[in-house]
Structures are given as structure tokens and as C-alpha cells.
């Protein structure tokens, strides 16, 4: 490799990308990586749909219950039973029946009731971003029949639309990933940078702390901390506490990496140049050292978000994290994770593909970023 890079390094001015800043080079390189772009777009869509505007994307509001309890998903159709083609997609109405032999409730399609579907239909009123009053939903039935419904992923035991719940659950789960990771970055970079730049007892203290934290097994620590959250706290406080716990446990690894980077960057001649010109510690830190670690930190953080989301899911699934009435993917999984549920309401497992997709997308994006943030390497 050395030879190839030497050849390239000696190129005087690369005309093809004349005068490009670091960021534009990164973007240029990132764009060429299809997988990463795909992951990025997917994440963008997921985040807009779930974190941003789940009220708009879902046909119902989260709290809206219905008489259809544990109803199976309604198939979206273009052809009716006679084989006639409908230009507008529709669903059949659901008819409740009692299976006497099994003593269970079952739903069957009622081909008489045809509920046409449409985009941007008026439905229950809500406030977008808590501000803009709206009634439009992304999709819904156009029928005026009060019994009309569209449950593309079925309903739960309270007759709530499962897809709606997945969207709202995603809001909390994805936000835990984002906010938690932001806090981890804040903790990790600041402590790691201090540790690397000042050295001495500061370094010793921070290093020993990360080691201690690293020595305690994750799950028991989570469990202990999560169990310590008082049960009378409001769900929202519990949520923020959980985020804090997750990021608190995870900053150690990042801090150590940042410390190593700072240690090597500190001896770079450009840092010395700034120091020799009279630059202050904070200038050297914020202008020369930290920017150099950022690309690295972003990659680590991106790749660590799935872990964060999975931790929340795992904790909530164990019943230690978020609890109803909050809805998160972990809470949803808890609903779906009984033998009975798998037998009678298998559609509740729809949560799983969403989790998988999110985690895959984060990994694709992270890998792409890792390559792109190093635009000076030849490849």
C-alpha cells in the first residue's frame, strides 16, 4: 500500500476535486457507497415517520381503542371475490365470530362490506409537532361507516391498531438511541479529551473509572439501576432516567478511544504550531484536537446506536425499562412474547422486522461513514 499512497501523495493538486473542504470530500465519497446511502435514506424515512410525524403516518391515534380486539391484519386488495378489479385499493370489513370448538374469538372477512382506502384522508384530529392542528392522515378508509377500519397489522387486546403502536413505539425507542448516544458522546468525548490532554491524576481518575464501569457486567448493572427507579415516578421521568442510565454505562469505551486519539493528535505538529503561536489550551482543544476525533466519534456512535436501542428493548422486555402506558418497541415485544400471543396474535411480531431494519440500517450507515470520513486514503 505504501507505494501506492506515496504515488498519490505526490500528486501536486488534484484537479478533479479542486478546492474541496473536508466535508465535501466526505460527502463525495459517501455518496458513492450505495449500501450506506440506502441505510441513510432508510433511517431518515424511519425517523421522520416515527420520531417526527407518527400522528400523520398512522391512520389512528395511539389511544384509540376499537371493538375489534385482537383482530387479524386486514389485507389490502384490488380484486374482490368475484374477481372484479377495483382501481382504488380496499379492505373487507371484519366480522367477529366465536369459534365454539376452540372457545376463541376469530375474525373473518366480510366480502359485503368493502371499505375503499385512500391517501391523505381526514380522520381524528391531532396536533403536528404539538403545534399545528391537523386532521389529515397519510392513509385511511374513505368510508363513512363508523365500523369501517383499516388495521394493516392487526390489533391488540384493547383493539388498538398495531401498526400505529409500532410507529409510536418507534418514537421512544429511536429517541432513546439518539438522545442516549448524544449523551454518551458528550460524556465520552469530554472525559476522554480531558484525560488525554491533561494527563496526570485527571487521566488516572478517568481511566480507573472507565475500567471499573467496564468490569461490571452490563445486564445486571442495568437491572440494578433500572430497578432502583422509584415506581411512583411518571413514565416520562422513567424514560429520561433510563436514557441516562444507558448512556452512563456506555461512555467508558468511547472515552478511552477519544483519549487515545487525543494523545496521538496532541503530538501532531499542527497542534504544536498553534501552541508555539500562543494559542490557548481551549483553542488547541476545540480547534485542532477535537475536530480531528469527531469523524471517529461519529462512526463509533453510529455503530453503537443499535446497541442502545436493543438495550432499551431488552430492558423493557424484561419489564425493567419502560412500562405501559408508554409504548416502545420493548414494551410491544413484551406483549408479543408469550406462547399464547404467538399462537393467537402472531401479527404482533411485526415489531421484530422494524427493529431489525433499523439496526441493519444503522450498521450500513456506520460502515459507510467509516470509509467516507477518511477521504484522504486512496481507495
Amino acid at each position, binding site marked *: 500500500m505504501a507505494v501506492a499512497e506515496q504515488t498519490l501523495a*505526490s500528486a501536486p493538486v488534484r484537479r478533479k476535486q*479542486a*478546492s474541496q473542504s*473536508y466535508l465535501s470530500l466526505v460527502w463525495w465519497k459517501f455518496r458513492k457507497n450505495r449500501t450506506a446511502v440506502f441505510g441513510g435514506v432508510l433511517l431518515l424515512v424511519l425517523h421522520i415517520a416515527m420520531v417526527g410525524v407518527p400522528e400523520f403516518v398512522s391512520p389512528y391515534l395511539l389511544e384509540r381503542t376499537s371493538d375489534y380486539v385482537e383482530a387479524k391484519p386486514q389485507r389490502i386488495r384490488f380484486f374482490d371475490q368475484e374477481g372484479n378489479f377495483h382501481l382504488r385499493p380496499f379492505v373487507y370489513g371484519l366480522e367477529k365470530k366465536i369459534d365454539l370448538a376452540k372457545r376463541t374469538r376469530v375474525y373473518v372477512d366480510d366480502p359485503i362490506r368493502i371499505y375503499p382506502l385512500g391517501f391523505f384522508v381526514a380522520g381524528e384530529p391531532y396536533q403536528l409537532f404539538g403545534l399545528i392542528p391537523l386532521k389529515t392522515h397519510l392513509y385511511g378508509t374513505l368510508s363513512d361507516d363508523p365500523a369501517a377500519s383499516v388495521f394493516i397489522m392487526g390489533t391488540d387486546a384493547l383493539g388498538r391498531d398495531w401498526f400505529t403502536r409500532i410507529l409510536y413505539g418507534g418514537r421512544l425507542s429511536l429517541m432513546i438511541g439518539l438522545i442516549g448516544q448524544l449523551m454518551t458522546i458528550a460524556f465520552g468525548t469530554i472525559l476522554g479529551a480531558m484525560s488525554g490532554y491533561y494527563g496526570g491524576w485527571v487521566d488516572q481518575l478517568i481511566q480507573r473509572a472507565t475500567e471499573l464501569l467496564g468490569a461490571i457486567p452490563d445486564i445486571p448493572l442495568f437491572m440494578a439501576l433500572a430497578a432502583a427507579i422509584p415506581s411512583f415516578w411518571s413514565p416520562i421521568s422513567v424514560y429520561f432516567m433510563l436514557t441516562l442510565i444507558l448512556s452512563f454505562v456506555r461512555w467508558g469505551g468511547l472515552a478511552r478511544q477519544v483519549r487515545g486519539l487525543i494523545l496521538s493528535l496532541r503530538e501532531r505538529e*499542527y497542534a504544536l504550531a*498553534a501552541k508555539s503561536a*500562543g*494559542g490557548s489550551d481551549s483553542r488547541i482543544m476545540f480547534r485542532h484536537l477535537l475536530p480531528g476525533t469527531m469523524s471517529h466519534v461519529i462512526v463509533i456512535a453510529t455503530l453503537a446506536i443499535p446497541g442502545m436501542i436493543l438495550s432499551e428493548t431488552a430492558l423493557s422486555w424484561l419489564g425493567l425499562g419502560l412500562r405501559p402506558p408508554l409504548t416502545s418497541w420493548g414494551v410491544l415485544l413484551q406483549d408479543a412474547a408469550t406462547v399464547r400471543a404467538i399462537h393467537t396474535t402472531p401479527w404482533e411480531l411485526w415489531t421484530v422486522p422494524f427493529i431489525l431494519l433499523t439496526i441493519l440500517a444503522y450498521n450500513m450507515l456506520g460502515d459507510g461513514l467509516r470509509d467516507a470520513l477518511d477521504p*484522504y486514503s486512496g481507495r
Partner: protein
Amino acid sequence: MSVTNQTQSQAQPPTKNDTILLDVKGLKKYFPIQKGFLRRTVGYVKAVDDISFFVREGETLGVVGESGCGKSTAGRSIIRLYEPTAGQVSFKSQVLGSNGQTKTVNLLDLNAQEMKSVRQEISMIFQDPVNSLNPRMSVSDIIAEPMIIHGMKMGQDTEDIIVSLLERVGLRSDHLRRYPHEFSGGQRQRIGIARALSLNPSLVICDEPVSALDVSIQAQTLNLLQDLQKDFNLAYIFVAHDMSVVEHISDRVAVMYVGKIVEMAETDALFTNPLHPYTEALLSSVPKPDPLYKPHRIMMQGEVADPSNPPSGCYFHPRCRYAQDLCKEKSPEFRQIKHDHWTACHFAGELKLEGI
């Protein structure tokens, strides 16, 4: 290139005066060696061990030596990039003086604010053209940084200064908005030089400024440094390991070995009549670009001594072919033998040493 050619035509004998700009006395820089859980200091690496030298206004003092001899550390200790362990660094400062008068100050006594002011007058050029420029900053940001640190606002004035500096070092004004990776090694070194000159210093410490450059680029850069010296009356401390480069650019040369200056003299005197056996051996080791030159090589045996555990007496004695018992026992004093010719050898003047 056009810039360098212009100045060549108006070549004048350089006006050197005898005013001493920087006077270093007994400078020491020891790095502690720490071991164990409690980080106890178990010894010291004597990177710079009691050196004294001076630099006159507008002259070049070359500092040569093999790797690990402390030449870079010495340069960096002077401007307190490394905090010296002991010593005195007297510098004739313009900014700290009043009413246009200069004031001689000991850099090691200055407080943070005063030290920051003095840093306008002493700047550095680094070795590695890749490492010495922050890859995230544009050329204009890089050159402007020292000015911004010293309180200048970015504006048309600073922009003009930067453009004139760029042109002075042989780059074009349209390079302003570019980033370091778009330049070749030689061009990057020019950017580093422009940065060093942005505050109009009187002393520039050049830390191996050409050793990472290709042969043809080396020559350009050396010429540029010489031209700039004439134009701005700069004094250089030129730290390098290449004897021929140092000979070419320096007015006076100091030779370092394991943290100490073993010899210091005018360039010609040092190269033709060395007084220290190390200088002699070093000169004879340099490969000459001449196939007919049959080297009467004085092979130095062994390796450079370990600065954390130097030999007794004269540090050079295990490799010295003239070593006597005295050399093992007593450390030689750094003394003036002839006019402006200093050395640290017990037998200086008595030995018949070969120069070039």
C-alpha cells in the same frame, strides 16, 4: 518561482550585525521516566543537558546531530513548548519593550500573558509537511491563525497580508481557499513557512524543515528560506541532521551529541577544522555524491548513547578513537578554544582532526 528569481538579481552581501538576539545559558530539559502503579519517577532522560549558545540578529545557527541528540527538544524548549527544567533564555524583545526600545527578557521568567506576546516574535517551521497543517482548515485559516490568536480580526487587511505572504513564498492567491491535502509536500512546506512569517517574527526556529522533502524541492525550499532571511532580517535556528544542508544554510553551526553541544563555531571553521572528534567522525560518515571519493572513513563504533543512562565522563568516549582514561572519568567543559570556536573536549586543540 518567479519570486525567488527576482531576489536573486538584487543579491547584496547580507548585512550581519553583532547584536545578540537570543542568548541561551545552561538550558536543561529532563523528561522524567515514570514506572509502576504509583508513577514514581525512577530516572530522567536528559534530552537537553546544560547547553549554552547564542544567535545574532539576522544570522542562521545550524544545530546538527543524530536522532535523539536533543536538537529538536532544544528548539522547542526555547519557546517553552516544553517547559525547560533549568536555564536562562535571554531574548531581545520588541513587543515587551516600550517607546520603540527593545527589552531583553528571560523567556523562562515570563508569565503566560507576556509569553504569549513574545510568541509573535519567535515562530516555528516544522518537519513534516503532512502533519504540520491541520487538514480541516483552509490555507487562509491556517496562515491567519497566529494573527487571530494575537487579536487581529479577519477582514480585508488580514486577507491582504495573507495573500502577500502566499505570493512571497511562491504560491498563488487562488490557493487561499484550498485545503492542505490538495498540495504537494513542497507546497505544504511553503504554507507552513507563510504561517511562521505571518506575525513578522525576528527569530524562526526551523525544525528539520527540508528533511521530508524530495531533493529538487529541498533546494527550492532552502533558497526560499535564504531569500526570506535577507528580506525580513530573520534569524534562524536551523535544526537538521543533514550535514551538507546545514553547511549550506548556516553562518554558525552547533553540533549536539546526547543532549550536549560538543562544538560550536563559524560554519567554515567547523567544517574545515573541527575540534571535536565527534564532529570529525560525523563529517567523514556523510556519503559524498562523488564516485571517485575514496572515503578515509572514520567509522564510529556502536550506537548513540542512551540519554537516560549516559556513559561516564565524556558521553562520546565509548565511540571515540582518541579516548584516554581521563575521558572516562571527567566530563569535559564547554570552552572557547579559538575566536568564536567552542568545544567540549579534553584534548581540543591537541588532536589533529580532519575536516572536509
